[in-house]
């Protein structure tokens, strides 16, 4: 890539005024570094997966509303986690985490266990218990 070809597209980095460093060649073909504000193919790839995450969050929210899953599932999606990651954060086996997704099991959970989830999601136990279905 030549230095003049370093992409300067508006993207997720430019919002925070961040620039990334890339290696490119100068007029004589020698390597040098340049700053790039972003590149469209990357921005599209990233927005693509963000859309997917948002979709998952929306679905989970709907499911909590319909009492199909517990709020734990919604917060897991909200924090871009999957069961494996959540399990390692709370220190509870995956099969138990999966079980806690059932609304019936969730209502019977002790404060001690709920505290682990609440801490991971940086909310209070009350917030976790009383999920707002606005």
């Amino acid at each position: 890539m030549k230095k003049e070809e370093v992409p300067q597209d508006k993207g997720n980095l430019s919002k925070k005024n961040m620039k990334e460093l890339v290696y490119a060649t100068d007029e004589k073909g020698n390597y040098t570094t340049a700053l790039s504000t972003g590149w469209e193919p990357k921005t599209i790839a990233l927005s693509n997966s963000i859309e997917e995450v948002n979709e998952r969050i929306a679905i989970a929210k709907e499911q909590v509303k319909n009492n199909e899953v517990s709020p734990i599932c919604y917060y897991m999606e909200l924090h871009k986690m999957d069961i494996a990651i959540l399990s390692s954060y709370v220190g509870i086996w995956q099969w138990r985490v999966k079980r806690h997704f059932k609304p019936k099991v969730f209502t019977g959970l002790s404060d001690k266990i709920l505290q682990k989830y609440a801490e991971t999601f940086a909310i209070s136990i009350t917030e976790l218990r009383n999920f707002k279905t606005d």
Partner: protein
Amino acid sequence: METNFTHHQSAHCENGVASNLLKHNGLNISEPMVFGIGSGLFFVYLPFIKINYAPATSYRPMPGQIFGKLAKRLGLKIKRQKFSNIANAIKALDENLKNNIPTGLQVGVYNLTYFPDEYRFHFNAHNLVVYGKTETDYLISDPVMETVTILTHEELNKVRFAKGAFAPRGQMYYPIQIPATVDLKSAIIKGIKNTCRDMLAPIPIIGFRGIKMVARQIRKWPIKHGTQKANHYLAQMVRMQEEIGTGGGGFRFIYAAFLQEASVVLENEKLKELSLEMTAIGDLWRDFAVEASRIYKNRSTQVDVYNTIADQLLNIANKEEEFFKKLKLTIK
């Protein structure tokens, strides 16, 4: 407490931390040199591991390996510590800062508050340097950022003890011994040989064979999984490839810069020619990303889009095979 550490921005975090820490300790070594000697160029396709619900492709070796190999080849001693207990991890880091030692850390990206939200996902193999501490904050030199930044004590503890795959477990590292003279020539040769071995490995999921395998799979994705999933897989691949210095085109350019530097050190003109060739391959990777992004944005007008980009990828794999065979002969 503050150590007089100089921040240099880099394209990739692990190279950057290594290069910055060594520069601080009086060994002037560039990012491409670190990348080349540490054999940072790699490719592996792991269809049985799913990341973000898509098959994993990695364009880099395991976290920590670049610095580890670099240290071995240059005869440096690096101290690495992991902790099971947060209090001990904090104590060890603070102790280092008190002794004027800027310290490298492996951290999770999700709670790095200075990153844009879009970049904050659960990825645990990021690297940064802590060079000081105030009453409320740690002073951070993150090599992918233009300037230095800060994290509160609590934030730093969170990223050091991020969970999930490659959990950093508070890992910190810093050079403890650097020889007065280093044998750059033999280190470069070892680094190049290692990369050639990796990229030409007779294993179907690694190196150029791995790239060929992905090309074959891409043809099947839309038939096997439908276009929506196929598009998601492609988008994930491009993200792994081009996201903040973790991949395809970007890595090829760093490697080309390394070969250029190496040609001067080894007084080998052939390496300079190969550097040009690597640059051309890097450009091909970028073209691939552009085409792929058109597909998952549904803007491509071609009928047989998946086969077209599979062909593109196959072409890259063939070029890389040819390239590394030549490189291997050149440094014999």
